């Protein structure tokens, strides 16, 4: 696995920048009325609140005169936990699937300068937890616990651990089926199974195999 780093072709970064942010309109903007779902005017009227995607916001100057970018509450809400160094239990993925990257994009627009510190401190506090749960798979199965970046790190940790365990069991040098081939076979089997009606009878192929062995 490659480390995730937002570059031009990064699909993850494109997903993050698709996220919408609440913005307040400061001045009449000609013929931008279509951005306001709740209005029928051709122009965008001052005082309205609209949702704009990050991919547009990041092209705006922080002190632009058109919009005031609203900073979502999720970051303020974890502020206390961060100060008390109690972030391990937070279900970060539930707060926002891209907690860190979304926060990183919003950092310049945050007049109180807390988001930047918060995402930095949160990850700093949670790395130990990520290292620990990479040693056993069970813990992480709880959904919404991790944000996208953390899941990626966790996957990398789990992979290292599996390789180590395989090695201890002396199967590290075995030639294995290619990952893509294996996934492809599984998908094909799944498709075949759902094709014929008796799809729930999944036990048959394995028991047949066992009897001929």
């Amino acid at each position, binding site marked *: *696995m490659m*480390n*995730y*780093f*937002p*570059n*031009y072709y*990064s699909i993850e*970064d494109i997903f993050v920048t698709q996220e919408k942010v609440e913005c307040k309109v400061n001045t009449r903007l000609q013929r931008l009325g279509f951005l306001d779902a709740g209005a029928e005017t051709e122009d965008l009227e001052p005082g309205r609140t609209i949702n704009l995607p990050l991919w547009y*916001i*990041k*092209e*705006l*100057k*922080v*002190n632009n005169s058109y919009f005031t970018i609203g900073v979502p509450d999720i970051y303020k809400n974890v502020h206390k936990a961060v100060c008390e160094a109690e972030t391990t239990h937070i279900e970060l993925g539930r707060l926002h699937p891209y907690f*860190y990257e979304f926060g*990183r*994009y919003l*950092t*310049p*627009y*945050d*007049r109180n*300068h807390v988001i*930047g*510190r918060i*995402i*930095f401190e949160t*990850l*700093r*506090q949670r*790395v*130990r937890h*990520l*290292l*620990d749960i*990479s040693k056993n798979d069970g813990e992480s199965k709880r959904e919404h616990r991790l944000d996208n*970046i953390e899941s*990626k*790190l*966790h996957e*990398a*940790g789990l992979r*290292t651990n599996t*390789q*180590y365990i*395989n*090695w*201890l069991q*002396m199967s*590290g*040098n075995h030639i294995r089926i290619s990952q893509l081939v294996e996934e492809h076979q599984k998908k094909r089997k799944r498709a075949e199974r759902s094709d014929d009606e008796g799809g729930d009878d999944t036990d048959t192929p394995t028991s047949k195999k066992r009897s001929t062995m």
Partner: protein
Amino acid sequence: MDPSIIEFIGEKSMISIIPNFSNEPLHLVYGSVGPFRAGFPVFVPLWLATHLRKQQKCRIVPPEWMELETLEEIKEEEKRSKFFTKMPCEHYMVVAQLVMSTAPDDVPRCEELRTIIKDIFDIRESKLRTSIDAFIKGEGTYAKLDNLTLLEIHSVRPILPYSLDHIARYQRMATASQRDTSMLGLNTTGSASGTGSMSNSLFTQ
């Protein structure tokens, strides 16, 4: 790095065997080994030792440190010390794993040794995780990791460097935003993005 590659590197370590055959020296790509004289110990690379042992052509002489008392001491020292102690062999895990799985009969009290070596590895690994945590939360800019072996270093790769990359990115972001509030919205996708501010020239025809 996959442990099977670390094993491959560790297999170059020399180990003593007692062959039950006699032979001229072998001239291999990496150098020569032998001559072999039945009943006399000779040093060979670990990969050759395990290969000959599998064919019942030798007995492996376990390295000096592969002995209960020595390992007990190492384990106690490792528990006491704040830092990582020096291991008797850079590839202690690889050597132990290969010797004890190919030639358990050549190693006295093999099962006990297996457990204690695993203990030492686990103590060191948990120490590693604790010191990583302290390092990341502290103000230090570098960490001293003397005496860690290759396999141990790779137990936190790539998750550790990846995590540090992200932490560094967020730290830069946090400090930059405090310094300069009038900066343009983030454009971290690099110069190849072509998403810079609009230039008028694009629209003049």
